[in-house]
C-alpha cells in the first residue's frame, strides 16, 4: 500500500519533485487503498453465504413464531379492536365524544393523522430516494420500512374521515371524493383537505405497488421453499410466475426504477400537501412559507424514528445482527441527526420571522407556544426533536442499540407533540380573547389514538409472520459474492 501511495504522490508531483507540475498527467493512475481506519464496514457481516441469507430471512416466516409473538399479537389486536369500537361509538354518537370544541376545532384527530402520515414517509424514502442515490445500505431495512409505511398510511386514513362527523357523507356520496351526487354537492376543490385525499391515496397506491413489486422475487423464493400446498399456492399466486430468468430480472429492474422515480416526488408532495392544510390559512403560527419542506423533513425524521423503534427489537428477537448491522443503525442515527437539525432550523426560522416580520399576532402565537398554557407540549417537542438527536454526535451512543431505541421513542413522542403544538396552540387562542379556550382530550381521544398503535402493530406482526421482513434478493445483491470483480466475488473460479 505504501508503495502505491508513494508512486501516486510522485507521479502527481504533490510530494516534493519540484520539476513536475501538479497537473501533469501520470502515465499510469495509481490510487492508494484507504487507510484501514476509514475502510467501509461490510453490509452483511461475517461474509455470510447467499444460502445463509435466504435461510435467515425466509426462516422467520416458515418456522413457528417465537413465544413472544402471540401475546404481543393479542395485545395489539385488542388495541385495534378498542380503536374500531371507539370509532363506532364516535360515529354513533357524534364528534362531541372528543374533547375538541371551538376555538380548537381540530385537535387530536388531525394531530394523529399528521403523525401517522409522517411515520409513513420513511418507507418510500428508503425504497425510492435512497435507491436513486445508490445507498446500498437501504437493502436491509427497506422492506420492513415499506410495510410500515403502508400500515401507517392505513392508520392515518382513519382520522380525517372520522373527524368529519357524518362519515357517510365523507365517503359516498361524498364531499371528500370527487363523486357528484343527487344533492349536487361537489367536493370543494379549493380545500387542502381534498388535496389530501388525492395525495394520500396516490401515495398509498404507489407505495403498495412499489412494495409488492419488490416482494415478487422473494415471494417466489418462499413458494419454492414451501412445504405445504396452501403455502405453495398462496405464495405462487402472488409471485406471478417468477422464475428468476434474465428477462424477468430485466423487467423487474426497470419496473423498480420507474416506481422509484414515481415515488420520489410523491414523498415530497404528500407531506407538502399535508402542510398546506395549515399553511394556506391565515392563522398565526400556521401560515408560514417554510412549512412544505419543514413538514417533509419532519416526516422523514419521524419515519426513521419509527423504523428504528421497530427494527432494533426485530433484529434482536430474530437474531439478524449480521444483516441489520450496527452500521445500519448508525447511518439511521445520522439521518435522524440531519433531519432533526433541519426541523430545528425550521423551528428557529419560524420564531425568527415571527419577530422579524413585526406582526403582533404572529409573534404572540409563537410566544404563546413557548410560554403559554401549552408550554409543556412545546418544550417536550423541543427536547425530543431538537435536543435528543444530538446525542448521536457520539459514536459510542449511536452504536448502542438500546440507547438508540430509547431515543427513537423520544423522536416518536416529539413528533406527535410537534403536530399537537402546531394545531392546538395556534387554535386555542384566536383573534378574539373572549373566545379563548383550553383543549383537554377526552378518554375517547386518548384510547382511539392508543388503539391506532394496536392496528399498526397487528398489521406489522402479521407482516413479519407471513412475508420476508427483509428483502432477500436485494441484500444478496450487496454482498461481495454478487460482484464478479470483488476478490470474494461469486464468479471467481466458476467460469
Amino acid at each position: 500500500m505504501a508503495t502505491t501511495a508513494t508512486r501516486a504522490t510522485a507521479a502527481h508531483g504533490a510530494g516534493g519533485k519540484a520539476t513536475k507540475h501538479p497537473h501533469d498527467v501520470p502515465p499510469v493512475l495509481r490510487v492508494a487503498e484507504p487507510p484501514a481506519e476509514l475502510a467501509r464496514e461490510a453490509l452483511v457481516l461475517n461474509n455470510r453465504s447467499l444460502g445463509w441469507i435466504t435461510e435467515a430471512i425466509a426462516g422467520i416466516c416458515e418456522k413457528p413464531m417465537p413465544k413472544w409473538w402471540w401475546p404481543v399479537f393479542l395485545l395489539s389486536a385488542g388495541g385495534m379492536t378498542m380503536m374500531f369500537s371507539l370509532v363506532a361509538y364516535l360515529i354513533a354518537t357524534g364528534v362531541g365524544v372528543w374533547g375538541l370544541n371551538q376555538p380548537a376545532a381540530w385537535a387530536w384527530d388531525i394531530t394523529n393523522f399528521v403523525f401517522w402520515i409522517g411515520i409513513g414517509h420513511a418507507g418510500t424514502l428508503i425504497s425510492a430516494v435512497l435507491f436513486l442515490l445508490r445507498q446500498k445500505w437501504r437493502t436491509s431495512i427497506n422492506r420492513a420500512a415499506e410495510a410500515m409505511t403502508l400500515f401507517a398510511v392505513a392508520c392515518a386514513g382513519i382520522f380525517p374521515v372520522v373527524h368529519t362527523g357524518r362519515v357517510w357523507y365523507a365517503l359516498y356520496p361524498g364531499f371528500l371524493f370527487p363523486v357528484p351526487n343527487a344533492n349536487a354537492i361537489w367536493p370543494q376543490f379549493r380545500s387542502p383537505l381534498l388535496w389530501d385525499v388525492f395525495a394520500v391515496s396516490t401515495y398509498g397506491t404507489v407505495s403498495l405497488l412499489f412494495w409488492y413489486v419488490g416482494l415478487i422475487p422473494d415471494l417466489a423464493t418462499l413458494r419454492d421453499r414451501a412445504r405445504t400446498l396452501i403455502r405453495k399456492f398462496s405464495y405462487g399466486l402472488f409471485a406471478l410466475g417468477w422464475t428468476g430468468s434474465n428477462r424477468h430480472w430485466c423487467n423487474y429492474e426497470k419496473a423498480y426504477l420507474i416506481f422509484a422515480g414515481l415515488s420520489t416526488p410523491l414523498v415530497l408532495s404528500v407531506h407538502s400537501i399535508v402542510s398546506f392544510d395549515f399553511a394556506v390559512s391565515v392563522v398565526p403560527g400556521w401560515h408560514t412559507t417554510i412549512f412544505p419542506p419543514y413538514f417533509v423533513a419532519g416526516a422523514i425524521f419521524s419515519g426513521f424514528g419509527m423504523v428504528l423503534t421497530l427494527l432494533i427489537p426485530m433484529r434482536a428477537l430474530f437474531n439478524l445482527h449480521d444483516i441489520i448491522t450496527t452500521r445500519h443503525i448508525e447511518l439511521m442515527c445520522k439521518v435522524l441527526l440531519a433531519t432533526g437539525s433541519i426541523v430545528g432550523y425550521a423551528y428557529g426560522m419560524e420564531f425568527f420571522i415571527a419577530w422579524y416580520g413585526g406582526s403582533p399576532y404572529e409573534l404572540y402565537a409563537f410566544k404563546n407556544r413557548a410560554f403559554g398554557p401549552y408550554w409543556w407540549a412545546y418544550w417536550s417537542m423541543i427536547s425530543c426533536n431538537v435536543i435528543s438527536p444530538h446525542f448521536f454526535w457520539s459514536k459510542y451512543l449511536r452504536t448502542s442499540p438500546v440507547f438508540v431505541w430509547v431515543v427513537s421513542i423520544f423522536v416518536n413522542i416529539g413528533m406527535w407533540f410537534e403536530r399537537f403544538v402546531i394545531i392546538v396552540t395556534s387554535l386555542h387562542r384566536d383573534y378574539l380573547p373572549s373566545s379563548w379556550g383550553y383543549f383537554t382530550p377526552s378518554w375517547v381521544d386518548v384510547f382511539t389514538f392508543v388503539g391506532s398503535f394496536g392496528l399498526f402493530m397487528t398489521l406489522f406482526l402479521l407482516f413479519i409472520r407471513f412475508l420476508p421482513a427483509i428483502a432477500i434478493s436485494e441484500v444478496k445483491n450487496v454482498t461481495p459474492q454478487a460482484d464478479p470483480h470483488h476478490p470474494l466475488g461469486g464468479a471467481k473460479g466458476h467460469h
Partner: protein
Amino acid sequence: MKSLFQNFRVLVALLVVSGLLGWATGGLQAADAATTNAVASADGHAHGVDGHVHAGGEPDFLAQIGYSYLTAYMFCLSLCMGALFLVFLHHLFDASWSAPVRRVAEQMSAVLFPWMLVLLLPILALQSKIYPWLSIDPATDHSLDVKKILFNRIAFNVLVPALVLSWGLIAHTFRRWSIAQDKDGAAIWTKKSRVLAAVGIFYFAFSLTLGCFYLMKSLQHQFFSTMYGVYYFAGSVWTTLATVWVVVLYFKDRGPLSQVISKRQIQDLGVLFFAFTVFYAYIHFSQYFLIWNAAIPEETFWYVGREQGSWKWVGFTILFGHFFVPFLVLLNQDVKMNPAIMVPMAAWAWLMHYVDMTFNIMPVPHPHGLHVTFWDPLFWAGMVSVLGYFFLKNFRSAAPYPLRDPRLKEAVTHHEVPAPGATVHH
C-alpha cells in the same frame, strides 16, 4: 500563510475605510431620502420600492451602479456558496463518487477569501444608495423598528463582512486539509474535514440565511418569508452544479482530470443538477403559492410589485426558464452526459440565475419594469472574470483532484484503470 495575514490586514483596513465611507455618505443620503420620501407615494415608501428612486422614476447614477453591482455579487456569491455546499456534502455523506470532483468545488469556494470579501467593499461603500432601510428612521417604520437590533448600520457593517470572511475561512480550511492529505494520505485530514462539515453545516445554514437576508431581502425590509434562505440556497446550488459539470468536463478533456473522471461523475452531477431544478421549483412554488393563497398585504406586496410592467414577463421567464425548460431537457438520462446539450444548458442556468437575482433586486430601483443598463453586463462579466481568474490560479496551484482521498479508489474503479506501462492518449 504569512502573505495571507498580510492580505488580511490590508483587507481589514479596506473594510474599515469602506464602512466609514458608507457611513459618511449615509448622512447625505438621509437628507436626500427625506426629500425623496416626501414626494414618494405612501405605498411605495411603505414597501421601500421608491425609496431611492428619483422623481423621474429612475435611480441616480451611484444607486444604479450599486444595484447592478449587487446583482452581479449575489450571482457570484451563489457559485461560491454552492461550491462550499458541495464540499460539505461530500464529507457529510462520506461519498465516493464525488471524490474526483471535490477539488474543483474546493477551489471554487476558496475564492470567497479574500476575493469575495474584497468585492464586497463597493457594496459597503454604496450601502446607503442601495438599501433604503438604512435611510429610514426606525421610529417612523414599525417593521424596521421591531428588528432594529439586527437592522442597524453597525450590525450591517460588522456582520456582513464577518459572514463572508467566515465562509472564506471555512472554505480555506477544507482546501488546506485536502491538499495536506495529498502529501501524506493520513486519515486525520478526512476525519477533521468530516467534523468541520458536520458542525459547519449548521453554521452554513443559519449564516447563509442571514447573509441573503442582509444583502438581498433587506432591500424591501418589510417583506418576510421563512422560505427565503432556502430559496436562495436552492438557486445557488443549482447554478453551481451546472458550472461544476462544465468545469469538470473541461478539465477532463484537457487532461488534469482525464484519469479520474468517468461517465459516473458526469452523470451524477447531471442528476443532481436535475434534482435541484425540481427542488428550486418546489421551494419557489411553495413560497409563491402560500403567499398568493393567503393574500395578506404584508407579504403579497413583494410579488405584486414584481407583476408590474415587464416584471411580470421576467416572472414568467423564471417560471419557464428556471424550471420547465431544464426539467424537460434533463429528463432524459443520456442528455446528462451529452456536452452538446449540457454546455448550453449550463449557460442557460447562468442566465436564469442572473434573471432570478435581477427579479429579486431590480424591482427596487426600477419598480415599473425591467431596465437593463450598461452596468449590469459590465459588472457581471467583470466579477465573473476576476473570480474565474483566481479560481484557475488556485486550481493550478495544487493537484487537480484529491490524490489520496480514501474514497478515490472506489470512485475510479468504476471504470477501467489503464494497465501498468500504458501510454496516455489525448
